[in-house]
């Protein structure tokens, strides 16, 4: 059983507190994604779990053991870095077996373990290549192989796909999800990309300024965002959020409606506006609309519609999908 528990975890750099008391339980075998904007503390939190960053206060438990002050190698974890951290002077085989050779395992055992991992990740033909002779996706797989070979209870991923192009990212998302299903290990994954979070996670932890904003399943966060920050962060395109007069009219401080929950009509609706920009995505069309009384908002409509900038449209929110936030 390799559940991970964080209790009132804090981290300060001098007088600046970057992790402000995080409590979190990650179940055995769960795929948990830390998501948030740059500087929210998600990578620092992951590094604290890994033991690469000291803890100012609070505790880290892995597999029921308090590992707050344990060395990284004693925590039963493996980590995949954003840069992959593959040693350029070693072959793929040597990179994957690096940790085992540090532990002075017999050569035959290392070779056997490396072959096993290479089979899982289809790296067999690449074993004798150096990292420079690999594509980005292949390097990523080697980095994952180096983690798997340690047979850890918890895998830590620090923005592992951010150096890949969009199509490869999509493919690697699927491969990682498959790998999680196959290994059944606990995985903690850091990303700033909410699409990665939504598509891969069993549980998403949204972080903002060193605090947890909300924890839940992807659909929980999409359907019941607890704060305007989560509402604005989860979902693509972003939720329309209105403050001031529009929110006051709705009896709240912040009023939110997702672009896909607006019905657009040429004839009538609650908000009248002028189309300023049209994004045609094929399956959907996203309209950037400017309305006199509420300002600019986005509307998503299915399929291709021949709106042009300057067209007048009407938008009506789905009453069942409106969000109202009050700070009281």
């Amino acid at each position: 059983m390799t559940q991970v528990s964080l209790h009132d975890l804090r981290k300060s750099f001098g007088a600046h507190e970057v992790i402000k008391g995080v409590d979190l339980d990650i179940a055995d075998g769960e795929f948990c994604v830390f998501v948030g904007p740059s500087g929210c503390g998600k990578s620092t939190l992951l590094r604290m779990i890994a033991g690469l960053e000291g803890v100012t206060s609070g505790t880290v438990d892995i597999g029921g053991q308090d590992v707050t002050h344990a060395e990284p190698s004693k925590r039963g974890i493996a980590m995949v870095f954003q840069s992959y951290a593959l040693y350029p002077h070693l072959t793929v085989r040597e990179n994957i077996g690096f940790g085992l050779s540090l532990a002075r395992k017999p050569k035959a055992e290392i070779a056997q373990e490396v072959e096993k991992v290479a089979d899982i990740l289809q790296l067999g033909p690449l074993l004798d290549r150096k990292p420079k002779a690999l594509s980005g996706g292949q390097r990523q797989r080697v980095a994952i192989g180096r983690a798997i070979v340690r047979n850890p209870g918890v895998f830590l991923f620090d923005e592992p796909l951010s150096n890949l192009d969009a199509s490869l990212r999509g493919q690697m998302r699927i491969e990682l999800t498959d790998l999680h299903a196959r290994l059944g290990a606990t995985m903690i994954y850091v990303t700033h990309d909410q699409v990665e979070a939504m598509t891969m996670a069993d549980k998403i932890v949204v972080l903002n300024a060193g605090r947890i904003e909300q924890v839940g399943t992807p659909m929980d966060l999409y359907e019941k965002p607890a704060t305007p920050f989560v509402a604005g962060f989860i979902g693509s395109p972003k939720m329309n959020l209105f403050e001031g007069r529009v929110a006051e009219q709705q009896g709240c401080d912040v009023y939110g409606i997702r672009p896909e929950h607006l019905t657009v009509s040429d004839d009538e609706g609650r908000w009248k506006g002028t189309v300023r920009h049209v994004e045609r995505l094929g399956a959907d069309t996203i309209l950037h609309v400017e309305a006199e009384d509420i300002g600019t908002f986005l509307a998503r409509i299915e399929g291709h519609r021949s709106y042009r900038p300057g067209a007048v449209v009407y938008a009506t929110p789905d009453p069942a999908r409106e969000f109202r936030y009050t700070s009281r």
Partner: protein
Amino acid sequence: MTQKSPYPYWFFLPAAVIFLGLFIVPTVASFYFSLTYWDPFEARFAGWDNYVQFFSEPFLIRGTLNTLFFAFVTSVLKTILGLLLAVLLTSGIFGQSFLRSVVFFPVLVSTIGVGILFQELMHPTEGAINVALAAIGIDGPGWLTNPSLALFSVALVDVWRGVGLATLIYIAGLSTIPNDYYEAARIDGATRWQLFWRVTVPLVWPATTTVIILSLIGGLRLFDLVWAMTRGGPGFSSDVLASVIYKQYQAGFWGLSTAGNVILFLLIALIVAPLAWWLNSKELDA
């Protein structure tokens, strides 16, 4: 076909003129004068006589072996000490910037000044080193007067003087190694020794190549420090090729000493070129 404009070549011209005047012409002239008996007024063609005479010099073998020994010892020590000092001076120790300046300072001092200073420090009876050793009951050796120790003493001084540059090159090399490599190895359970041996040493290899090549070339052509400290003595015990050549020049055998310089140039090229190729072939591919 469009003809290439000559315009860019005008920018190349100043460097070409300097290179031609200060390197190519003297090199070719050296080859020519090495085949002559020459003085400031005339040059008589001598064929290979100077080379034949140079190779029959009684102290040539000793001078060559001394040169190779000196270059080897100073290169090895500068490489090892430079790396260790660089690791220490990038580890965040107290007073790191000050200590870096201290280590680099000898590089800035004139070689002749260093030679004269250490000649005094290494004096067998009045030198500060032996006086300090005597204070703790050790009878210090004749650093520069003992024929079997003199060259090694000069080598130690050369290492003291040159290790700052090696350290500087290594500090630059270490600063290019991403921290992720160390963190990944720590997660894999690497000890401090394994981090150094399995991560630092291979990844800092380009700096090692530079340090070895620079130290070796400097060691093979060393003259000023030997001349300032021992003048090749006692006897001929610390003579290196450059000091042998200089003595021939002093004695008025200009053609002979020019031939010696050509041989020294070829010796350096024969040792350094294949070594540089081999070291570069071992360089990691990032």
